[in-house]
């Protein structure tokens, strides 16, 4: 599924990332909603599934000609269709990824990592999450850090993405003991402790999808 070189991902692979994420969201829809009903309003799976289904439909309608166009379309669709907190957050994430990726038809490892960090920065700009607030940030930030670290250490994009996915999973799990300070869960105060954050859970799916779709064939 990767592009020409082992460490370059083409438009097909990038589109495959989005599709794999949409598939995972659909598969985990009820789980995400159940997590949100414990500390939120029972709609995170529904929101994400509605948004990603629309994003895939938009991609199916017209194949984007560049990474910028691809992610802009995904981001705009998520903003337009998702609603809730996740719409602007995931929407901004993809809009920034696209803006940073630029009008190219493939990305190398560092290019992808830079784009993903821009996405993380977008989430921070939009939601002002800080580490430990028990949000999607707590899974996304460690994942982006792990991706950078892996590439810095000379790992392949695939290996670095697998490390990032492990970091996202760990970040997701680390939200369980946290007391929420952002989003709806924060209203629960101490009662938010002991529950896994739904947004961190969907982010772990996003990064897992990247490892699957962009991590090179047969290496999962």
């Amino acid at each position: 599924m990767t592009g020409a070189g082992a460490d370059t991902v083409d438009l097909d692979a990038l589109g495959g990332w989005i599709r794999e994420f949409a598939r995972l969201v659909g598969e985990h829809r009820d789980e995400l909603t159940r997590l949100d009903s414990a500390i939120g309003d029972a709609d995170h799976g529904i929101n994400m599934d509605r948004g990603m289904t629309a994003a895939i439909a938009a991609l199916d309608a017209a194949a984007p000609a560049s990474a910028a166009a691809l992610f802009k379309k995904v981001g705009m669709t998520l903003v337009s269709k998702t609603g809730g907190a996740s719409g602007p957050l995931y929407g901004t994430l993809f809009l920034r990824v696209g803006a940073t990726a630029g009008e190219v038809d493939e990305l190398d490892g560092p290019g992808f990592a830079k784009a993903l960090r821009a996405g993380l920065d977008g989430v921070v700009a939009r939601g002002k999450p800080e580490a430990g607030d028990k949000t999607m940030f707590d899974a996304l930030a460690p994942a982006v850090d792990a991706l950078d670290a892996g590439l810095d250490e000379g790992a392949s994009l695939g290996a670095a993405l697998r490390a990032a996915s492990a970091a996202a999973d760990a970040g997701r799990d680390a939200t369980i003991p946290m007391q929420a300070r952002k989003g709806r869960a924060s209203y629960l105060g101490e009662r938010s402790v002991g529950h896994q954050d739904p947004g961190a859970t969907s982010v772990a799916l996003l990064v897992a999808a990247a490892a699957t779709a962009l991590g090179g064939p047969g290496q999962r």
Partner: protein
Amino acid sequence: MKKLINDPADVVSQALLGMAAAHPELRVDHENKIVYRGDAPVSGKVGLISGGGSGHEPLHAGFVGPGMLDAACAGEIFTSPVPDQMVEATKRVDGGAGVLHIVKNYTGDVMNFEMAAEMAAAETGVEVASVVTNDDVAVQDSLYTAGRRGVGVTVLLEKIAGAAAEQGRSLTEVADVARRVNEGGRSMGMALTSCTVPAAGQPTFELPETEIEIGIGIHGEPGRRRVPHVPARQVAEYLLEPILADTDFSGGDGVIAFVNGMGGTPLLELYLMFHEVAGILEKAGVRVARSLVGPYITSLDMAGCSVTLLKADEDLLRLWDAPVRTPALRWGV
């Protein structure tokens, strides 16, 4: 889950079809899920738009009409609408005097309205101001949370700011009135039962027959604490105590007192609650200048209620009394 619906996915769009059929004086943009007053835009008048997740009816669409909102954007159940809707509504209600966005303080709503304001500024020349309601005293430590939630005061604000706009006040003035209402209003809610989100198919939380939940929001978010089920008098104390501890409502021109039903509570019980609330207020030296009792900002089928107090002054009372003609609030016209 038993509900009068066809498909959980179509609840909002089909309810809007019903609204359009029942209220020919309104216009409904079904594609964008926006309800407009029939004569929008009103030239020279500040346009008021609000919106939020559905499931709180009559909020907001039931408050569209002369003297209140110009448009309401309906999101999915308990899910903020999206910026496209707000941008579209903003364009369509702008009568040249600018548009006020009325936003309840929830992360999703705030971010979506923020994006809408950014997009409206980029795409149109319309002047947009925003006011965020955050009156729910159940949320303490608001430094360590997303801040107090916007609940009951939103209804009072939409009425009062709507009257100010109808009078021809400027965008700055209308936004000022709105902020004054928000600053002077405090609310607290409770639930006897959870609500059931259609797409989820089961109650958001479980509450045993012997317990009630104090400090709930309007989205089936669990409250701050569970207590044994107590008589209405004690419930009224649970709700008023934190409100009165937060803000001094005594003296002056009194308050607008609002006892709100959460959707599944009979009016009989709301009036009974209002009696209890009025009794506590009298003892606390708080004068009730005006009142509102009924299900106006609901949480689907939840049984429960909330109490909102708004510090009144002469200007606010005059605006409160001004004519309003919407599906859910109507007087003086």
